[in-house]
């Protein structure tokens, strides 16, 4: 199983921000944003050559500050947005901006890969997502499947919907939703639902998950105490419109049906520390990836709550052939849900994981020490899903 071995790539800096290049569906490409207070921060464009199992990287400079969140436009390959920290006058401010990659980054890298490290090109700023108030942006969300003209930024306790103008050079606020209440008001994370004609948004703050209707900018549901502690991330099931996965500091991953917010549909408790990221596979929504600060990455096969619950049967024997280090999840769900495998290539906390937008069987994870690992779904499972 030579090609099942993970491919590891090391960044020089610490990093938290990772995204697949959403607009790109041919090449397997990930974008990583670094965090460094001392040096110019970079955006690494990681190309993975599936056939040769080789990584090609290109580096673009992101001089505005350390990158906390990165997301790519679904329409235009070259456009991306970041949330970054900027230190000025002994104050730390989080900003958000939309950038365009220089058009020739690719050619430069191929000809002289060594140069690109030392003489990297710089991102071209398209516009700041700044409404005039000083706010700390947590993340920027592009309209899923959209034309790259609409995006939402989550800043403090506001969700701001932006319209990008011609050539994306200017952003205007089209509407704002504000969460008023007691306690910790900052949104930590959010997700734009691909369902309902992209009219819904889910956000996380403290231990609660809230759903918003973007047409009226009003709250439509609220899962209080979704997690015992902070909710770190959430993701929508790409095929089942009411299903939502969330993860948080209580080490759990929970699956919700937003029509019934009292109880989670299912709970996983496999990680031994906070879970920072949860991602549904775009095509096969039974595959769920979770990344945790216990330095592990877990791929779960949640058949029972997927859109194809009867698609295939997982049987133990076959599973155990696939991977050595997978754990059976018998205690929780004797049916068919199981942990497919646990990936332990990271040495530090894993803060981000993303499926490739081009290959549904491939994913990348990023740990704080700057290690990017590209892995595949075990072949046996892949065939079982496909066949």
């Amino acid at each position, binding site marked *: 199983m030579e090609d099942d071995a993970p491919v590891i790539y090391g960044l020089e800096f610490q990093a938290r921000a990772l995204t697949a290049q959403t607009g790109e569906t041919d090449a397997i490409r990930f974008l990583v944003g670094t965090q460094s*207070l001392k040096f110019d921060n970079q955006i690494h464009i990681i190309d993975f050559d599936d056939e040769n199992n080789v990584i090609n990287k290109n580096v673009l400079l992101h001089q505005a500050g350390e990158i906390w969140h990165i997301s790519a436009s679904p329409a235009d390959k070259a456009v991306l947005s970041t949330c970054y920290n900027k230190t000025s006058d002994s104050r730390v401010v989080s900003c958000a901006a939309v950038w365009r990659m220089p058009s020739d980054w690719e050619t430069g890298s191929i000809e002289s890969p060594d140069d690109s490290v030392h003489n990297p090109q710089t991102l071209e700023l398209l516009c700041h997502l700044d409404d005039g108030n000083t706010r700390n942006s947590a993340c920027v969300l592009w309209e899923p499947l959209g034309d790259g003209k609409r995006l939402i930024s989550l800043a403090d306790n506001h969700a701001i919907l932006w319209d990008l103008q011609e050539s994306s050079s200017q952003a205007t606020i089209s509407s704002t939703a504000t969460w008023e209440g007691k306690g910790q008001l900052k949104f930590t994370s959010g997700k734009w639902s691909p369902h309902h004609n992209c009219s819904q948004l889910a956000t996380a703050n403290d231990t609660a998950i809230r759903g918003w209707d973007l047409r009226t900018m009003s709250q439509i549901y609220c899962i209080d105490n979704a997690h015992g502690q902070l909710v770190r991330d959430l993701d929508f099931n790409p095929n089942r419109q009411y299903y939502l996965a969330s993860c948080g500091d209580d080490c759990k991953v929970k699956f919700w049906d937003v029509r019934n917010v009292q109880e989670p549909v299912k709970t996983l408790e496999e990680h031994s*520390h906070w879970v920072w990221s949860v991602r549904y596979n775009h095509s096969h929504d039974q595959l769920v990836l979770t990344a945790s600060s216990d330095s592990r990455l877990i791929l779960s096969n949640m058949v029972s709550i997927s859109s194809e619950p009867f698609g295939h049967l997982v049987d133990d024997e076959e599973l155990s052939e696939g991977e050595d280090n997978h754990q059976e999840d018998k205690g929780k769900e004797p049916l068919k849900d199981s942990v497919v495998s646990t990936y332990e290539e990271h040495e530090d906390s894993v803060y981000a994981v993303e499926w490739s937008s081009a290959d549904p069987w491939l994913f990348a994870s990023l740990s704080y020490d700057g290690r990017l690992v590209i892995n595949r779904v075990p072949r046996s499972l892949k065939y079982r899903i496909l066949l």
Partner: protein
Amino acid sequence: MDGDADSSGAVSEDSGPGRKRRVHGMLKLYYGLNEEGKAEEQPTSLDPCDINGPHFDPEHFLNKLRRECSLAELMDQETCMVKQIRSLDSDMQTLVYENYNKFISATDTIRKMKNDFKKMEDEMDCLSANMAAITKFSACISGTLQDQHAQITKLSGVHTLLRKLQFLFELPARLNKCLELQAYAQAVRSHRHARCVLQQYSHLPSFKGIQDDCHAIMDKLAQELRQKFRDGGSSAKDLSECVELLLQLDEPAEELCDKFLSHAQSRLQSDLQGLEAEIRPYPSASAVKDASAHRLSSAAAAGSLTDNSSNTSAIPSPTPNTDILEFIDRGCNEFVSSLCLVITSYQELFINHAQKVDLASKNIPQMANGKLQAFVDDLAAHYFSLVEQRIQQEKGVADNSLLVRALDRFHRRLQAVAKLLPGSAVPNRGTEIVIRAATERVKQYLSALQTFYMDSLTDVRQALATPRLSVASASVAGGGSLLGGPTSARDAPNSLPELLSSLSASILNQIKSVLASVHLFTAKDITFSNKPYFKVVTFCSGVRESLVVSFIKFVCQSSRQFCESAGDKGGSTPPALLLLLSRICLDYETSTISYILTLTDEQFLAQHHSPVTPVTTLCAEAREAAQKLLNHYVKVQGLIISQMLRKSVETRDWVNTIEPRNVRAVMKRVVEDTTSIDVQVGLLYEEGVRKAHSSDSSKRTFSVYSSSRQQARYAASYTPSAPMDTNLLSNIHKLFSERIDIFSSVEFNKVSVMTGIIKISLKTFLECVRLRTFGRYGLQQIQVDCHYLQMYLWRFVSDENLVHFLLDEIVGSSAHRCVDPAPMEQSVIEVICERG
């Protein structure tokens, strides 16, 4: 010649007694009656010289004498011979004389007889003549009397007939009289005598009339009997008499059965209604209290059955509820006993009697039996439903013996029915009720145990709530000196081990007492306990499985629920309770479960036919629960400290902070809390194994931690030329250290628990630090804080390197996140910490 003459003379003329004998012998010889036998005969016969022998030859003898003997001898011989001849002669004379005499007398006798016979013949002739005359006369007389005799016979026949007729004619009147006097039995007897005759001669008008009259009267009588029967006021004996008479009157037996039963039914129903009335008004709380008092009074009142029943009928429904024993007593005494009575009399009447009397209607016994079965079943069903209702009301767990005794009595009394009605399903159903009641009771005990358990947990919770305050105050008072902390804390929560022991002891006691109560069901003197299916199959394994095992499972279950529910709602369970419960579960695993089960098996002599839950399963479950609880405890405590650390990191502006002068208060608080947790855990769990370290390890490791490596790391990360080195260094370090599972399972000892808590806290600290940006003094403050933690936390954990590593990471990360990394001098840090 003389010899010849002599000898011949001697022979013929022999006399004298000596000769006589010899003559006898000669005669004998002559007739062949030899006394000597043949052996002697032979030589005599052969010798011709033997004078007595048969071959005697006188010639030869004489010659021989002449030849052989002398003269003297011959003379002697001659004299001897003469003597002999003489005696022989006298003998012969005597004989002849004797015989002659006899002959003479015989002749006389015959002559006499001849005379007598002649006379007799004459008399006989006379007699026969007389007889002939008598016969003649007798024939003559009988011939004359014959006519009169025939007449007399005829007359006597007529007389009998006339008497019968008279009886018949008098019958209606007599019947009427009987009717008046209510001598029904006599009337029926009379009628029965006449019935056939009347029936036979009913074609004659006069008889017809009589018959009709009789019928009318008998109908009336039957009517009256029926009336009497229906009235039902009469005693059972009267009733049975009625029935008997009616049967004799050819009443249809079926109808009678029905009537009899319906009559009995009404009486039994009234009994049942009495019982029902007792069930209905059920004052829930007071009844239980009053139960014993009632029982006393009822025992006094239960002297006689009639007394009791009149009591209850006099006081209708609003009687206060009696206890179950009294109720069953009443049911037995009134209902069951009268039921038995009814069954006996019914069987007497319709079955035994019918078998005796009526051969014609053979199907009556079967029919009657069937009816009786149905009747008994019906009533018994009603009775059972009442009893069951009553038993269901018996919710109080306290007085089990009462219930057992009641059930026993119930069961025992039903045996009487079983004896009377061998084929009946009633006793079986009764036993079923008993079994149901028993299992129901077991269930109640289970729920009582469960509530007891939950109650005692609530008590523990309250008990924990109060001393916890004193712990807090004590540790606050203990304030500055941390070494003082543990001692003061140790005094305050005096209760934790005590609570543990008292809780487990009280639960164990409760289980024991419940087992004892349940054990009453299987006592030897209880009849139903001897039923094989009760003893073996249902009950004993039921006790084990549905009482003991269920309870243990419940304990584990509820413990697990504490973990789950508390996880989401943010720790509503006090951590100390979690700790306590985990210890209890652990104790259960090690000893208590096997003890309880052994106890149960011993008490109930279990022979398990169905598969039972083995001890190991339960132990595993308990251990799992204990593990879960302890893990949860670690999680909760870790979370509490984590929250403090997180708040302290998140709420501070680390960029614009002042130069550190003190350890932050929150760090002191962390250490204090950790210390008190350590004390708390130490009260219940053993110390556990830790990796060896020297006595002054805080000093030693601290210097290592802060000086060489840390400095090197800072140096590396701040040289702009080599950004890679940091990662390299840290990665290499991680490569050689084991991966740390933060929220992992802990072992059942103090050190492991504390390690878990500290791991969680420090990891949180690390992750929070990574999310912030620090200024120069921010970094320095973190350095100070970490050093402080380092000084105090190492002692709690199994492997102090773990603490070093995590603190290292924290300082390293904050250095990374620092915009102006200028670490503080180690000596300064130490001074600040010492001062704090």
